[in-house]
């Protein structure tokens, strides 16, 4: 069966067919049309590459790329593939260099991805070497367009991709500026390997409905109960979003208790609640802001825990989630300590995130025999719009709106 023979359910955005998480051909089409198409793919923080010569390796979809700051200070991104035989050019996670040499046959490249040297191109003592009309540059690693928005670095292979701010929409851009308000300092990182399709994780991040139902830690300590003040903003073409919560505005409702929800258990208290002591560093009372940029970027402010997450597909049933936590260059030791303590909330051991890795895997396993069935996405209606309620799946539908346009599904 080809990807073209897949038909989206007639209900439209209110249904997500399960084949979309399973089909190898869909996966291949995503690589071509989304990740290598007209989208902005997150590469990392500018703060990871502060100096000329700094480079890192990462991925755009499953295509390996090098990100490098050249001697002029400009950021470049190019395929991590040698023009010669296609070997990985750069085998380090990160480092600093003036040029990059392929280990296989020592072909060399500058930090803009230009082929600068072919070993023994003219042979040795008149013997061997390449024909004079050889054009190894014709297979050079592709260069991506790079944009740095408030210290966040994105790349695209397409000339069609709109400027970043228009791509995410003004409201999402404003919420990026809110968090990336000043120079940042990287505090560290790690990866989480998720046993699920990348879209299940990206939906999960956008799904404000699940937050206080799956994550009991949140609810019990009233960090994010749905009756608290907040909202969801859907941006750009639908696939980018912001959700936010204003914690201190807890209305003190008892909707959860009355509904007998599992996510509220009485009498559970922290012995060391100092971990949650936070400061309103943005001065707007927003204690939690989760922001996504289609197709695979997450910016997180959970109290004073700040992080970016890069969602990397690794086949239809496997995803790598790369976390990088940061603070501001201006932070004092107390602030850094606060951020490190609150990092307990997130990551593979996060009090409010460890369930996500498992839950997306439960879907991947649960739908194994159900490619022709679909999930029901009707909380908050069937359309895509910004909403004051978080008992909604509007931003999940937004993801599928943009996804279907790119994929022509």
């Amino acid at each position: 069966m080809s990807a073209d023979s897949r038909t989206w359910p007639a209900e439209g955005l209110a249904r997500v067919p399960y084949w979309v998480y399973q089909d190898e051909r869909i996966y291949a089409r995503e690589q071509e049309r989304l990740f290598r198409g007209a989208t902005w793919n997150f590469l990392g923080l500018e703060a990871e590459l502060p100096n000329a010569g700094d480079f890192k390796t990462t991925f755009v979809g499953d295509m390996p790329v090098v990100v490098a700051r050249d001697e002029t200070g400009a950021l470049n991104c190019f395929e991590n593939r040698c023009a010669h035989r296609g070997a990985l050019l750069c085998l380090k996670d990160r480092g600093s260099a003036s040029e990059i040499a392929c280990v296989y046959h020592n072909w060399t490249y500058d930090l803009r991805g230009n082929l600068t040297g072919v070993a023994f191109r003219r042979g040795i003592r008149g013997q061997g070497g390449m024909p004079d009309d050889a054009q190894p540059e014709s297979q050079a690693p592709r260069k991506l367009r790079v944009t740095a928005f408030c210290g966040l670095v994105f790349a695209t292979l397409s000339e069609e991709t709109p400027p970043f701010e228009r791509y995410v929409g003004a409201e999402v851009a404003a919420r990026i500026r809110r968090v990336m308000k000043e120079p940042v300092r990287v505090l560290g990182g790690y990866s989480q390997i998720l046993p699920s399709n990348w879209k299940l994780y990206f939906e999960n991040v956008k799904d404000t409905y699940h937050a206080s139902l799956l994550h009991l830690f949140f609810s019990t300590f009233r960090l994010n109960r749905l009756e608290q003040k907040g909202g969801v903003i859907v941006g750009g073409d639908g696939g980018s979003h912001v959700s936010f919560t204003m914690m201190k505005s807890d209305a003190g409702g008892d909707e959860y208790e009355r509904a007998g929800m599992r996510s509220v258990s009485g009498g559970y208290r922290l012995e060391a609640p100092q971990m949650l002591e936070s400061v309103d560093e943005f001065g707007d009372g927003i204690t939690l802001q989760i922001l996504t940029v289609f197709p695979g970027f997450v910016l997180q402010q959970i109290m004073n825990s700040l992080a970016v997450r890069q969602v990397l597909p690794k086949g239809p049933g496997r995803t790598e989630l790369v976390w990088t936590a940061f603070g501001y260059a201006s932070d004092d030791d107390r602030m850094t300590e606060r951020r490190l303590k609150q990092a307990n909330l997130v990551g593979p051991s996060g009090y409010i995130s460890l369930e996500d890795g498992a839950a997306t895997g439960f879907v991947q396993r649960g739908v194994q025999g159900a490619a022709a069935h679909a999930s029901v996405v009707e909380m908050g209606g069937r359309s895509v719009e910004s909403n004051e309620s978080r008992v909604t799946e509007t931003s999940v539908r937004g993801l599928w709106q943009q996804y279907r346009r790119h994929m022509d599904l």
Partner: protein
Amino acid sequence: MDVELQLAIENLLARYAHALDDDRLEEWPEFFAENGRYRITTAENLERGLPLAIIYADSRAMLRDRVSALRHANIYESQRYRHTVSAVLVERVDARTVKATSSFQVVRVMRTGESTLFASGRCLDRIRMDASGALFEERIVVLDSRAVDTLLAIPI
């Protein structure tokens, strides 16, 4: 080599591993001093001098909160660990303080029957020895890999 000290430290590490593997998580904070520090980080963060941890606690109370969240709040598929602890190096710092470095491997056994090598790494310990026994003042668990499969719920 101080054989008695070596045995005492190896005994501590063995008791710690068995408590976790036997699901006696409530005993886990008791291996630490009242203001004991516990961190799980990655070799990469350590080498780059970056302070971020996957789990970070600086008191027994924070460790008890972790256990209580695992028991009452966090949702994860039932699983067990099997720790193998080896290559224990012991170095006395002063009359009551010992530094230890050890290697570990953790096999994770899921309810589905799947057993995998979940983590490997080393523990960098600072241990207080007094009349009442040996307690961790600091235990830094350094994961060799920067990647964690699915989630890391039960401590290492």
